């Protein structure tokens, strides 16, 4: 019995040091605990060099609240090690459990008793010492003996020699991208009204295109539209044609030339020109110059010239807090047009919180006809909380006013709209688990514009694995108080997502109460039925189709669409 007890004790002791793993696992996983929490996202753990821990080893922490968070060993002492917590979501505490992965080849050097001491052999006193290095040692004819015995190396151990990093210009040219086609056909019974579109496009991405380590990108479409107005026809939409150089770990400066969306400040819009930026450890800044294509279906360019600059401050290497500000000045056909300031804040603190805000601020001078001074034209701000169990809560605020522009960007509002129109919206959205396979989702929003105020509410339940594995049933009720109508209705959808395909059936019923009509006409009942599906065919091919029907009033509208893509 004593022997059995001793064996059990030994087994228990062994199991506390190593996590049981399959024999073919190339790693040995050693359990550890946090013994102290330091600054700069570092912690000290109770394993060290005697446990064969080495710098660069991957560590995972398992807090009591659940989850798995990564860290990397940055310093090793005999019985402890300093670990940098790389996962910003973890709030480390003393006593928290974890494990470190040690390559089995290294770990077993101490486990096997027959293995020789991995330390280099001590010099044997009676052997003659090697000659002192001298100027004549490398002279021709002098025989040099290599005496550093490689006695610590065994087959299967990692190579210890450093690896020369492959520079971007050393890499093989690599072409990736996709070709795609999509289309839609809509027909309504009323007046034979119909519209359709068909597009075929490609997006190519060529690494090291010209041997300098740069990146060439092409993204273009051919579109055919058929509508009941004079906008029908064929268009070529060159979305992107650019060449970028730098911006890698080898080069902090980055250049891009051509047609592209600027990396530093995409809020300024697609550019036909040049962008330069420089990324540092705690900050980035850059500037861009060129023409702004009009954001229409053919991206016409040449009318609007811009210069812009931005600066971004970053709190730390993990970019948990970034503050960015940029300035853009535009000219329309040579005439001074827009002075725009864009300011952004992004905060990703610990515990799943996230806060983002972007503001577009226009500065008007006396030469503008309708506005003067500084105006907050547009804003998007959100604060959200993601919980470990998948629950989520978001509060989002959006604001929009028409800027006074010479540029032809959108449907041109008249002077009255520019002067008085505004749209402010605040929305609260959430997803909460009600068990293993049931989830509640809801949203509550309110808006205020120049004419009215209103809002919308939605609440639904999502059931997973109802009839078969991977299926999903969703029941939602909704109501809206809008500008011209108030709606109430419900939706039901059922579908399944598998490894290679998905499908969904959807039905919506709603009563749409029109504002300003008499009792005979003010209620419209609307039904919507939709069937959709998608499939991955393998070898980079995937596609999807949908059929959507709306039954409203005494008419029916049908829309059919498809999407087919080949990635390579």
């Amino acid at each position: 019995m004593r022997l059995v007890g001793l064996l059990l004790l030994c087994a228990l002791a062994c199991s506390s040091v190593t996590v049981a793993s399959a024999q073919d696992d190339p790693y040995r996983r050693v359990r550890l605990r946090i013994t102290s929490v330091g600054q700069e996202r570092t912690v000290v753990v109770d394993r060290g060099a005697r446990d064969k821990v080495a710098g660069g080893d991957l560590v995972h922490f398992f807090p009591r609240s659940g989850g798995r968070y990564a860290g990397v060993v940055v310093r090793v002492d005999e019985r402890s090690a300093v670990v940098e917590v790389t996962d910003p979501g973890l709030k480390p505490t003393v006593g928290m459990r974890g494990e470190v992965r040690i390559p089995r080849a290294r770990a077993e050097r101490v486990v096997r008793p027959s293995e020789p001491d991995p330390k280099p052999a001590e010099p044997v006193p009676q052997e003659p010492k090697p000659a002192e290095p001298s100027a004549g040692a490398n002279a021709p004819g002098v025989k040099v003996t290599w005496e550093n015995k490689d006695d610590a190396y065994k087959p299967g151990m990692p190579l210890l020699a450093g690896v020369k990093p492959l520079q971007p210009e050393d890499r093989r040219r690599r072409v990736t991208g996709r070709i795609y086609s999509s289309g839609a056909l809509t027909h309504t019974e009323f007046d034979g009204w119909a519209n359709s579109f068909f597009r075929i496009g490609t997006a190519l991405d060529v690494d090291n295109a010209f041997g300098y380590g740069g990146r060439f990108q092409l993204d273009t479409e051919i579109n055919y539209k058929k509508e009941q107005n004079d906008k029908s026809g064929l268009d070529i939409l060159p979305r992107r044609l650019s060449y970028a150089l730098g911006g890698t770990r080898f080069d902090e400066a980055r250049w891009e030339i051509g047609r592209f969306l600027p990396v530093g400040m995409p809020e300024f819009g697609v550019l036909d020109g040049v962008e330069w930026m420089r990324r540092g450890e705690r900050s980035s800044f850059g500037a861009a110059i060129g023409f702004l294509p009009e954001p229409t279906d053919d991206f016409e360019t040449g009318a609007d010239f811009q210069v812009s600059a931005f600066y971004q401050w970053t709190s730390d290497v993990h970019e948990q807090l970034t503050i960015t500000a940029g300035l853009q000045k535009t000219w329309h056909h040579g005439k001074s047009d827009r002075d725009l300031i864009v300011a952004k804040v992004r905060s990703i603190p610990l515990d799943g919180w996230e806060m983002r805000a972007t503001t577009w601020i226009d500065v008007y001078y006396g030469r503008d006809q309708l506005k003067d001074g500084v105006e907050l034209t547009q804003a998007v701000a959100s604060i959200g909380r993601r919980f470990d169990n998948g629950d989520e809560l978001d509060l989002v605020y959006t604001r929009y006013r028409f800027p006074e522009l010479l540029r032809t960007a959108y449907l041109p509002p008249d002077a009255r709209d520019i002067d008085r129109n505004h749209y402010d919206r605040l929305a609260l959205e959430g997803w909460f688990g009600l068990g293993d396979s049931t989830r509640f989702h809801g949203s509550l929003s309110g808006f205020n514009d120049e004419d009215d105020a209103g809002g919308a509410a939605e609440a639904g339940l999502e059931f997973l694995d109802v009839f078969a594995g991977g299926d999903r049933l969703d029941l939602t009720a909704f109501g809206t108080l809008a500008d011209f109508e108030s709606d109430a209705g419900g939706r039901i959808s059922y579908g399944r997502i598998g490894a290679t395909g998905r499908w969904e059936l959807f039905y919506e019923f709603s009563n749409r109460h029109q504002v300003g009509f008499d009792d005979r006409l003010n209620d419209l009942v609307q039904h919507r039925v939709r069937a959709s599906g998608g499939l991955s065919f393998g070898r980079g091919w995937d596609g999807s189709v949908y059929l959507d029907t709306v039954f409203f009033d005494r008419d029916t509208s049908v829309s059919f669409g498809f999407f087919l893509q080949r990635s390579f």
Partner: protein
Amino acid sequence: MSERPSFRARATLLALVAPLVIAACVTQGVRSSGLHRWWAGLGPVLPHENFPADCSLCHVGDDWETLRDDFAFDHEKETGVALEGAHANARCLRCHNDRGPVRVFAAKGCAGCHEDVHQGALGSTCTRCHQESTWQPVGMIEMHSRTRFPLTGAHAHTACHRCHPGGWVGTFQPVDNECVTCHRDDLQRATNPPHINLGLVDRCDRCHMPTRWDQVSVR
């Protein structure tokens, strides 16, 4: 309006720009050698310190850039991060590349890797409209029900760009929701009665239903 730029606007612009320039000068060092701790001397794009010693498990011959045909990597098991939807079939170098450590970019969400073609105007929660299995947006008509202009009748099947011209290239901006904003052509064609001559150029909803132009309620 005065032809001279207003003093207040200039002062405001200066007040906004000056701190920006000062902050840039103060915080920017001569050289940021620890560029996101992703030094040029670190070796391969993916640090290999913890990888198995047998290179042939992944690599072919003497070409470090080519992986074996039967190369497989359980991303969730090895790293704790599951690759969902189309990410599961993406090439490793799409995320692990020379621009920096992937965890920094992953912490930014979708925008860490995907270009925001909406130019920031639609916020940062891409999953409201997009899915990881396909980037094609879904549920747009339902989402429009939460706005001040739910899509009723034929509006539900009207191409987005008819009302949001920038939508064709991804820039969705709110539009004035008066009927005439999108139906200006219909107004000009209306001759029975001649709307423009009679001054019937706005408040279409006083007579017309949102589902069809010929259904009129005259009050």
